């Protein structure tokens, strides 16, 4: 991950965030979750006879509010990630890499046919090696 001192983002809980957006998200989610929970607790407390059941329903309502608020935040604040499709590993480069790791033609010839077929499908086999071993 390239670091860039000029950009305003910081890494919190393993990903890049804008601190103002983060603060706003936390405020929005807590402000949605906690009052809904407390309101639901009062409401269900009056409606339901069993207190523990009322608490459970209130908890569920509070959590639904948290999730809903998070969905709103996801729409308000875009992810601080940039997307780029990685170039497909070049076949030649991949084969060279494999040989560097010890995957020589001789070692390849000792593999069972099933593994060799799997590698051939991936293009991890040099044509010449196949011919030599054929």
């Amino acid at each position, binding site marked *: *991950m390239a670091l860039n001192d000029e950009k305003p983002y910081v890494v*919190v809980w*393993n990903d890049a965030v804008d601190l103002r957006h983060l603060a706003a*998200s936390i405020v929005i989610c*807590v402000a949605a979750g906690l009052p809904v929970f407390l309101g639901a607790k009062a409401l269900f407390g009056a409606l339901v006879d069993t207190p523990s059941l009322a608490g459970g329903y209130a908890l569920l309502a509070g959590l639904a509010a948290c999730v809903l608020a998070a969905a709103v*935040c996801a729409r308000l604040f875009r992810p601080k990630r940039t997307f780029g499709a990685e170039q497909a590993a070049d076949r030649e480069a991949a084969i060279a890499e494999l040989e560097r790791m010890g995957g020589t033609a001789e070692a390849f010839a000792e*593999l069972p046919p099933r593994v060799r077929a799997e590698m051939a499908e991936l293009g991890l086999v040099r044509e010449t090696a196949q011919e030599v071993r054929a």
Partner: protein
Amino acid sequence: MTPDLLWALGMGLLGAVVFAAIGLVSGTDETSTLAPVTLLVVLLGVPPAGVLTFFIAGAVSKHMTHAIPTTLLGIPGDTTAVPLLDDATALRRLGAPHIALRKALAGGLVAALIAVPVAVGVASLLAPLAGPIKTVAPFVFGAAAIFVGYFSPGRWASVAAIVPFALLVTGLNTVATDQLDKSLSISFFLGIAIGPLVVDLLITSSRSGRRTLERTGPRPFWLAPDGGTGRRWIPNPLRILDGRQTAATAAAAGVTSTTFMLSPVAATVLAGEITGSRIKHPYRRLTTLMAVKNGTTESTYLAETLIPLVAFGLPLSPVAAGPAAALFNAPPVYTVKGADGGVHNLHTLLSSWQFLVFSLLGVVIAGLVVYPFAMRYARAASGWVARRISHEALIGAFVALIAVVAWYEGGPLALAVSLTVGAVGGLANRLLGMTSGVQFMAYYVAVLLVPIVLG
């Protein structure tokens, strides 16, 4: 169909779907997601069969989808995926990330199917020893806390920090008991689980701390192409793995599902070392390691949950004390130390047969729902999450969730307890390498051992 079976089916399906989604979000920690959500399910009054199936289906699904960011994005899906990262990266360099993913998924499913019956069987063998073990349990917890601490990144620092951490818990609980006329546990539990997040948030709000934060531009991410094998997609794991890979995965799963004291990461590294040293060809070694390592994570996880649950009813393993803790202790529904001083949780509510059936049901549901989805739509799904779901929204949701659940247990005081434990625990995690697993053990030391020591 009996109501139990209906609950199990419904909750298993819910767990599989919810955690398949969470697993796609790279970097989410096991404990901080699986623990609080399972706790919720327990508190909401779901019957035991539903709770168990929910947890098992959730854990298995999360391990399946967390393999997606690990193999395709090169970011560990969560802490237990870290040991897979190097091999996954090597396969990515060979242009075969989709093969890495398929081997990992297939290995995980095979291992899960083996681990459940083996673990329940081992637990049944250990169950006769439960009586004597329970009487010495408080001391076993002390010993286990030291053991888990020693094998954490912090080593001796973690072991040393157990005493102050346990005293902190005791002190806070005494205050809570004075004020609320009941002790707290969920709030401690949440505090430990979200400690790393609390610390990160504290640092961002500190003027001097903010300067120490890692600054970055937008986080770049790449999605590896999903080409290579074309459209021919067969979900049968036995056709994705070759014979030797199936055998190695099954052997590793069989052995590791008899143990319950080793942490999943430690077991995975160990199984990987043993398997990897025997395979010479790099392609074959890497693909086999994907299956074996992901399989071992799964089997260790399931064994660490099921063995203590079936045999003792006490959370005597790092997983049981961490992500699975709500299956053991979630007052007022489940307790390890009730009014009569006894255990009242899934251990007392379900029989061994029910454990076997509902756990297998959880694995099968995850296998039917998440496995084909992950095989087919892995690339599209992780791309969607990375592009659409901002990290800010995710953190906001978690903070609000903690606030609501802690308030539910004991109002503002409980929330303060959660934040205190989170701050101290998170700092101990960050600075001393005292993982949340060690902290959970220290919590049980505080609840079970400290009262005996203090008389």
